[in-house]
């Protein structure tokens, strides 16, 4: 049954892709949304099955690569982890599809269909990634996701900048993928299998060096896909795509792939302290770094993008400190509120006719009530204010971080404060105060249609209530998610902190977040930041000049090296050699064909001589071969 889940989006992709010129927009929307809805339904059934303790299903579909003893099958694995991800992907994915039918309605027919076929392919790839029962299948999905992100970011392909952004996303991802692939190869060469069950059962056959190497290489892949330092710069640029695509990338698919992969490989990571520490350090560094950048961004989508990077950092922090459940939980809640944020932002952008600069917004509260309220809920959720969902998940990670190393916790709380600050800055600048756009825009301001608001409302409910799936023991919760996932996340660290300490920690983090939120609200509701920033602000607004740094340190030297090879080595060296060979052959051709002089007598004479020579060669072949063997 599991195969149905990716099958529906695949069919949707094929239908919309092949018949994009003949289908009407309505039909395209129905096919696109219907496919994802169908797989959502199947996912729910699967989830209930697994939850009811149904047989853990490893479902072989067909033999994929069979070379001698080396076997890789096309296998799907439905267990607690993958079924949960299936729900997130298909559920959120469906809402985004639904939202897109309205958001993309201005596109022409065939482009509309193209958009939906890409979208379905995206969901398909992500499902493949999650469902695969071995690293190779995961890699197929992994690559598919990368491809689709490229296609969708460059969806408006007439804009050169957008194409550049698409390229950037693809290349950055490829760098990570190379690491991922090497990790898989390493694994295959050591264990001969890539199946999760076999790998985790045979971990003991690996040396510590192997495990560290493999996990680090796999983590490089995760860095690319999940936008961690140093491979994060593609994600903010990925805003070039349509807003629902951003929502899809940030919430349901793509960036969570890295988290999924590390969580899936928890049995490996927990055996390598080096890898765990690196994951945690990279995670917290990214969380802080991205948060600082987000504070000074003026593009509504850029703020959200950096907030995603930052939140992903939290997730990796969780993974690094062994709070796997917490990370997965945060993936889930983050999916809710980040999808909500993006869709809300999309709604705003839609209403303002593709205006993305916050400085030209403001006061939208009264024009777009539904968007406003849902957006506010999302902001509270992401800021980690109880009892909204973000609080529970983020706190679980922070508690685990404290248990591991208090420094992580301190940094995490600072990051949480910044999160609250920039989110409420965003909220205040956008929805409070006075409208600062043109009269024209003001005239057209309106609440978005139902296809947009309904997903917003659903997501708002989830963003508010999503936390209750895993209420910590301290609040008398049952930790349902924790128990549900425990068969898969065997390496979960059970952190031992006293309840009082935990309460204190929560209090501090919530206090910091609330403080930051209030400062931001008061500061920006009345006097939004309209001028160009100065000093440190300018550095932050320019994203610490990281793009420029990469350009100068990596891209430009590479280009120069390429130019050197192209102009010097190839022109004079290789071309000269190749042309020389060609010239020599042509010359010998001209000479050799003179042998063919058209005279029967010559031919027969040559034949007779060759017979004699062949005879001699035959009779003295022992001497001849011996001679050659002596030379060579």
């Amino acid at each position, binding site marked *: 049954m599991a195969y149905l889940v990716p099958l529906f989006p695949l069919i949707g992709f094929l239908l919309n892709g092949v018949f994009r010129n003949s289908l009407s927009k309505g039909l395209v929307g129905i096919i696109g949304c219907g496919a994802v809805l169908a797989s959502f339904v199947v996912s729910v059934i699967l989830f209930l099955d697994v939850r009811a303790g149904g047989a853990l299903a490893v479902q072989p579909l067909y033999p994929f690569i069979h070379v001698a003893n080396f076997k890789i099958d096309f296998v799907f694995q439905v267990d607690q982890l993958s079924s949960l991800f299936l729900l997130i992907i298909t559920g959120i994915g469906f809402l985004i599809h639904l939202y897109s039918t309205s958001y993309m309605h201005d596109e022409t027919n065939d482009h509309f269909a193209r958009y939906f076929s890409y979208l379905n392919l995206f969901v398909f790839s992500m499902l493949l990634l999650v469902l695969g029962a071995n690293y190779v299948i995961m890699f197929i999905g992994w690559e598919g996701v990368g491809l689709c992100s490229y296609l969708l970011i460059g969806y408006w392909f007439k804009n050169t900048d957008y194409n550049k952004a698409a390229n950037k996303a693809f290349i950055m991802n490829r760098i990570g993928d190379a690491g991922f692939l090497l990790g898989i190869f390493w694994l295959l060469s050591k264990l001969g299998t890539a199946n999760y069950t076999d790998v985790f059962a045979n971990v003991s056959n690996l040396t510590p060096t192997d495990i560290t190497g493999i996990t680090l290489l796999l983590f490089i892949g995760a860095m690319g896909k999940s936008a961690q330092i140093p491979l994060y710069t593609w994600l903010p640029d990925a805003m070039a795509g349509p807003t629902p695509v951003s929502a899809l990338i940030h919430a349901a698919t793509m960036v969570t792939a890295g988290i999924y992969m590390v969580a899936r490989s928890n049995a490996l990571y927990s055996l390598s302290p080096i890898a765990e520490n690196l994951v945690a350090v990279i995670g917290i560094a990214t969380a802080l770094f991205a948060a600082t950048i987000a504070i000074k961004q003026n593009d509504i989508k850029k703020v959200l993008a950096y907030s995603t990077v930052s939140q992903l950092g939290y997730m990796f922090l969780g993974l690094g400190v062994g709070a796997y459940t917490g990370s997965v939980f945060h993936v889930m809640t983050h999916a809710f509120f980040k999808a909500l944020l993006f869709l809300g932002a999309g709604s705003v952008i839609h209403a303002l006719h593709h205006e993305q600069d916050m400085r030209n917004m403001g006061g939208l509260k009264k024009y777009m009530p539904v968007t406003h309220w849902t957006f506010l809920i999302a902001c509270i959720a992401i800021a980690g204010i109880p009892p909204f969902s973000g609080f529970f998940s983020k706190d679980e990670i922070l508690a685990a971080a404290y248990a591991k190393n208090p420094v992580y916790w301190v940094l995490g709380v600072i990051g949480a404060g910044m999160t609250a600050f920039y989110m409420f800055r965003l909220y205040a600048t956008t929805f409070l105060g006075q409208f600062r756009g043109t009269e024209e825009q003001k005239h057209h301001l309106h609440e978005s249609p139902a296809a947009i608001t309904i997903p917003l409302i659903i997501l708002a409910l989830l963003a508010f209530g999503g936390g209750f799936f895993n209420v910590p023991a301290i609040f008398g919760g049952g930790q349902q998610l924790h128990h549900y996932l425990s068969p898969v996340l065997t390496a979960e660290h059970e952190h031992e902190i006293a309840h009082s300490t935990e309460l204190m920690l929560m209090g501090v983090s919530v206090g910091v977040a609330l403080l930051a939120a209030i400062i931001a609200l008061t500061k920006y509701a009345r006097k939004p930041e309209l001028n160009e920033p100065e000093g440190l602000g300018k550095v932050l607004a320019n994203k610490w000049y990281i793009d420029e740094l990469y350009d100068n340190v990596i891209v430009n030297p590479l280009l120069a090296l390429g130019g050197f090879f192209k102009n010097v080595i190839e022109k004079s060296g290789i071309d000269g050699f190749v042309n020389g060979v060609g010239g020599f052959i042509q010359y010998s051709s001209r000479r050799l*064909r003179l042998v*063919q*002089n*058209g005279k*029967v*007598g010559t031919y*027969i004479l040559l034949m007779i001589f060759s017979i004699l020579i062949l005879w001699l060669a035959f009779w003295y072949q022992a001497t001849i071969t011996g001679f050659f063997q002596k030379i060579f």
Partner: protein
Amino acid sequence: MPIQYYIILAAALFCIGVTGVLIRRNAIIIFMCVELMLNSVNLLLVAFSKMHYAISSANNKGTAAITTGTDAQLFVFFIMVVAAAEVSVGLAIIVMMYRNVHSTDVNFLNRLKN
């Protein structure tokens, strides 16, 4: 007579044939030299036929199967027939060429080269 006489005679005839092919330019004479080569082979085959009969009877105390060596003689017949067929075709080609260019010199027509 010892077999090597025959072998040397056949080899000499064969060499004469080859030499003729090499040094003559008249197509008909070249062809005659080829026929000489074939006939040297015929001679050789017949000689070998007798030789094998002799060897066989010597090995079997004077009684060899009557058919021993006859296959070579039959082979000679086939060579003669095939040679006749070749003659008819070859002469026809030479006549055709003669009718077109009034020469039987093999080097006269030399358009196909390089």
